[in-house]
């Protein structure tokens, strides 16, 4: 994306487009990657409530995966996942095969 000149942007740091965080991909910031196991998941959605980046993907009220384009790897989802379930495991990004 071409970065704009000072003549082209709103003054004072104002951002005019609401909800544009979606277009700003923060996934590359990640050191640890949450790995979700759909077999273990009970779809309690504790991770979805707690995720600060809205990176838990749902369909029809059930978890279907993680949005790695935005997940920063904070690990809150793995922490919030009930201990008896442990459906999310944090792994070092470089150790995970894509």
């Amino acid at each position, binding site marked *: 994306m071409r970065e704009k000149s000072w003549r082209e942007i709103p003054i004072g740091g104002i*951002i005019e487009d609401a909800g544009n965080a979606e277009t700003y991909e923060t996934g590359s910031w990640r050191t640890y990657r949450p790995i979700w196991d759909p077999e273990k998941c009970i779809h309690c959605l504790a991770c979805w409530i707690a995720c600060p980046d809205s990176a838990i993907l749902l369909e029809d009220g059930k978890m279907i995966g993680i949005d790695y384009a935005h997940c920063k790897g904070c690990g809150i989802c793995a922490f919030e996942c009930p201990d008896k379930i442990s459906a999310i495991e944090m792994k070092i990004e470089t150790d995970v095969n894509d």
Partner: protein
Amino acid sequence: MARRLTLTGNDAAAEAMRQIDPDVVTCFPITPQTELMHKFAEFVADGDVKAEMVLVESEHSAMSAAVGAASAGARVMTATSANGLALMWEIVYIAASNRLPIVMPVVNRALSGPINIHCDHSDTMGCRDTGWIQLYSENAQEVYDNVLQGILIAENPEVLLPVMVTFDGFIISHTVEVLDALDDKDARDWVGDYKSTYSLLNTDEPATFGPLDLQDYYFEHKRQQIEGMNNATGVIKSVGEAYGKLSGRAYGMTENYMTDDADYVVVALGSTCGTAKVVVDEMRAEGKRVGLLKIRSFRPFPHAEILAGLASAKAVGVLDRSVSFGAPGGPVHKEILAALSGTGDATVVNYLYGLGGRDISLDHIRTVFEELETLAGKTIPADEVRFIGLRG
């Protein structure tokens, strides 16, 4: 129709605020500003204004609340002095950076310590790089006029920067003077209504205010601020001319008093200019070619007017009422030297005076002019400072 009033400088500022009737006024008391907001609070209590007055627990909160209200699209004012301004510091920068046209009378007072409540310019000179426009006032009349003009300057779409209207603590703030004020209708028509481009409360066109701004765009936003400040020079002049047509009192970036043919010129800001004018008149009557260059707008700095005002000068005495510790001379002196750089051979002499409210008299200023006569043609080192009224 003008109304002739007898008011202190604080009450003159409050009178202008009554007529402006801002949407929001945030307030925390500090000497010598306290009576200003005390007076405005009376207007609120008496129902003379509709302004929402927000009483907060510190100046940091006063400026924060002002920033919040201005972001919501309100016309906002507050006022402070010295240590209060220092406590606001962080948010003073943010008000300018977020391009919020807040107008704030600042009653000049020495910064602690040792603790002192009287006038010098250490408070506002210390924040000359915050991005605020700074208008210095010579007397209560100018306080009133500058506050009314400040609104139009700050809110001009080519500027959109906050404005400090400064005046000397106690010397102006607590001294009763005669001044002419506009009638309420003229004042209301003059300031008109403020319509902000953005508003936190506009849910139809939501926007983000004060976001993180890193290596990719922070520099561009600073460039925009520079442009706004550059534009302010023309706007201050045009507003000053328009105000002259309305009130009979026109204003510019400076007041060049008897400088056209002057051999010796004193440069000063604030109430000292009134004292200096008396000396200039006396010495002119004696046949001396002396003049005063009064800086009204210190930010933006009036380069063109300085050059015009000092064009004939053989020697210039720059009066600083604050210290820039470790720097060669006071803040005004440094900027005068920079403005004159490469333009001629006028001798520039720096005088430090009036710290902590130390009085400056007619005799002091006459002595400066007499000293300038003896120093003309000599080279004065930039870091040589002379002290007025200091015990040796």
